[in-house]
């Protein structure tokens, strides 16, 4: 970030949602409907402020807002600083923009819920945390937001807390995130210990200058620690298990937190710390492996899911994998590019799913849907556009970003995994194909064919459809708009994220682009055919290889595996420590000592006859004994 700082007022961006959260909760207790209005307004204000700032942001500069010194002790100094540079600007735009839309959407979606003042308060609190995360000028402020979004995620997943399973899902999300956070913290400690600061402005030159004579191992270590944090937040293997469960929350929450913004925080953090990661090729290789594996596993799992939100959840996990692939290749701007496009189309998909669920009276199983295109045309169209976007069909936004990812991977120049990159690419392309396939499957099952449910679906009201339309438009054209075709190139905008790894950029013809999107086309086409015409085919495939199908529908049994090797042993250990070690051994020793004293006391009590003459005899006998001992012996 060798740029110049401009002092600016940034704090209102984060402050509006915070204030909104408080007001929404306090005033919402009186009148529930106010909560949604306040929260949406707060979010919109925040968005406007972001726009204002971004508009004014000159190239190669960043805004800075030093609020106060948070921690100052010895050589540990942490300022509470907000910064808006290009990266933050992009993220802020996404967060506040998509966030505002989803707030708007929620006012309608949640309009019947008794606790919607809580809901909006949480949602605004989330906005606050997320903005802290992206605005934070150092890792510590980032970490505040990092944990904050985890908390809000926890609260929102468990929003319908009367269902204990939902609450448990929230807890799972928080705890898994916490594991990642622990890694993140260790990374911070390492940086503090060896570099002495977490401020990005100070950190980047310190690390890139190589003054920290610690070598690649240190960078790798720090990078891996931070990546653990990212894994937790962005649901990568092995910490991805919480995200599918997180669908317990209200659908707008899934859209905002578990698709568009929070889960991309890991990617953001990687991009933010990109200067460090590029110096740690081994770590990047790890990131690539994890990312590819995640993408593939999630994609395959999504194939067999029937719950529309679960499909979307796994698809999110898979797409996050794509983002990390880009980051792993050192193409951080690509990762951010995909974050943005993904935010558009995935939010749209989730909101669409929410619309469907809302319309079908909280039915989530796709097997009980179908034929909704007649009842909910807007939802259907927006959903369809987004499916095409995610499938990576040319000119939809997904194509632009995915193509960039593949391009970045093709230019893999990391000494590690160099010989494997070909195979990895094949796997990635296959995953992209699968993406198109399962997304089309969900579209077909939901909107085409005959209605299989028993409810009376209806189109959603305007506060829900407007965001859908906006997002669909963005999903369709956003990619093109950002890729430089319309005069604005995200790559150039985020030039600061290019750490020597200059990605080759080439304009391609439409035909070439269409050809390049062959994986998506194939997937869409295949799925369309299979689920509209050859309906027996999917079942046949699955029957062909029963273990595989079982594995897929069982989601690779990750939950069960973790339960068996981590959770339950730990629970058992806890019980063991309490019952056996604590009560049995330690307390047993203590009480045993007491019991021993007691018992020997009882034993000696026999000698305490209470008979005076007995005592006298003992007294005298002992005296005589000692006298004899002393004088005679």
């Amino acid at each position, binding site marked *: 970030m060798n740029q110049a700082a401009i002092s600016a007022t940034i704090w209102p961006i984060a402050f509006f949602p915070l204030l909104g959260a408080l007001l929404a909760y306090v005033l919402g207790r009186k009148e529930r409907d106010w909560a949604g209005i306040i929260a949406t307004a707060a979010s919109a204000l925040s968005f406007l402020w972001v726009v204002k700032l971004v508009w004014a942001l000159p190239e190669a500069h960043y805004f800075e807002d030093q609020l106060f010194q948070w921690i100052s002790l010895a050589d540990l100094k942490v300022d509470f600083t907000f910064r808006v540079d290009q990266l933050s600007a992009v993220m802020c735009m996404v967060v506040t923009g998509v966030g505002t839309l989803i707030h708007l959407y929620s006012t309608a979606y949640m309009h019947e819920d008794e606790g919607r003042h809580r809901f909006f308060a949480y949602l605004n609190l989330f906005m606050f945390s997320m903005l802290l995360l992206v605005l934070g000028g150092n890792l510590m402020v980032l970490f505040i937001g990092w944990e904050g979004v985890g908390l809000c995620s926890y609260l929102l997943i468990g929003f319908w807390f009367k269902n204990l399973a939902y609450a448990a899902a929230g807890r799972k999300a928080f705890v898994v995130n916490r594991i990642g956070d622990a890694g993140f913290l260790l990374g911070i400690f390492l940086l503090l210990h060896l570099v002495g600061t977490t401020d990005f402005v100070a950190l980047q030159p310190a690390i890139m200058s190589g003054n920290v004579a610690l070598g690649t191992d240190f960078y790798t270590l720090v990078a891996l620690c931070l990546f653990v944090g990212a894994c937790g937040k962005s649901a990568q293997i092995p910490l991805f298990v919480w995200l599918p469960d997180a669908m317990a929350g209200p659908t707008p929450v899934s859209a905002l937190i578990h698709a568009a913004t929070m889960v991309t925080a890991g990617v953001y953090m990687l991009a933010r710390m990109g200067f460090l990661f590029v110096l740690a090729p081994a770590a990047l290789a790890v990131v690539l492996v994890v990312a590819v594996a995640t993408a593939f596993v999630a994609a395959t799992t999504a194939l067999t899911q029937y719950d529309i939100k679960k499909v979307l959840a796994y698809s999110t996990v898979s797409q996050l994998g794509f983002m990390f692939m880009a980051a792993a290749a050192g193409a951080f701007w690509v990762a951010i590019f995909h974050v943005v496009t993904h935010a558009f189309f995935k939010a749209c998909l989730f909101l669409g799913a929410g619309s469907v669920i809302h319309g079908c009276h909280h039915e989530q199983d796709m097997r009980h849907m179908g034929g909704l295109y007649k009842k909910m045309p807007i939802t259907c169209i927006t959903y369809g556009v987004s499916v095409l976007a995610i499938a990576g069909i040319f000119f939809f936004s997904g194509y632009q970003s995915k193509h960039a990812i593949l391009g970045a991977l093709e230019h893999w120049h990391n000494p590690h995994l160099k010989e494997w990159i070909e195979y990895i690419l094949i796997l990635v392309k296959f995953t992209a194909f699968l993406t198109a396939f399962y997304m089309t499957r969900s579209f077909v099952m939901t909107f085409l064919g005959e209605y299989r449910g028993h409810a009376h679906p209806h189109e959603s009201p305007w506060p829900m459809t407007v965001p859908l339309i906006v997002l669909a438009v963005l999903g369709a054209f956003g990619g093109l708009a950002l890729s430089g075709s319309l005069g604005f190139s995200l790559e150039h905008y985020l030039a600061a994220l290019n750490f020597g790894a200059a990605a080759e950029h080439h304009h391609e013809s439409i035909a070439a682009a269409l050809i390049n999107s062959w994986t998506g086309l194939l997937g869409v086409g295949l799925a369309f055919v299979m689920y509209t015409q050859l309906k027996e085919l999917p079942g046949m495939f699955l029957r062909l290889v029963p273990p595989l199908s079982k594995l897929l529908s069982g989601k690779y049994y990750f939950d069960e595996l973790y339960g068996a090797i981590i959770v339950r042993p730990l629970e058992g250990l806890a019980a063991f420590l309490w019952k056996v070690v604590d009560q049995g051994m330690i307390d047993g020793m203590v009480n045993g000592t007491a019991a021993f004293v007691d018992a020997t006391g009882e034993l000696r009590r026999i000698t305490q006859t209470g008979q005076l*003459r007995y005592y006298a*005899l003992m007294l*005298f*006998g002992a*005296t*005589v004994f000692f*006298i*004899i001992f002393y*004088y*005679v012996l």
Partner: protein
Amino acid sequence: MAVTFYLMAVLLLLSAVAVITFKNPIYSALALVFNLFVVAGLFATLDAHFIAAVQVVVYAGAIMVLVMFVLMLLSAKLEKASPFSPLYFGAALICGLAFAVTLGLEFDSGFNSAPPASDLQGTVAAVGKVLYSRYVFPFEAASLLLMAAIAGAVVLARRRYRTKEL
């Protein structure tokens, strides 16, 4: 002089044995009174006249009268005779003998080199002088002790009117 001493010694031991052997505590008390007189006599042989007189006044005249008083107060109700316990008796006897013999032997050999007896006279004046000069603080403490003892005895022996015994 020596004859007096040995006579007194025999009387002393006999009366002491009598104290512990009489079944009737009154007899024991009488034997003890006699014993105390003999002790006073022994004090007199050691020229401790004041102490001898005090021995009679305090021990024989006050303490033992109190004991007798209590004995008589209770004697009507003291019907139970203590059964003889050969075990205790044997043990006590052995211990006592061992004690006496061991220490006796030790004394016998230990004080041969003691200086010849002085011609100290324990007159009232002599004792008083020491008592009121060097020992004036213990003396005052002793008076406090007695005061406390009086109060304690009164409190202990008073019949409890307030709290009816259960």
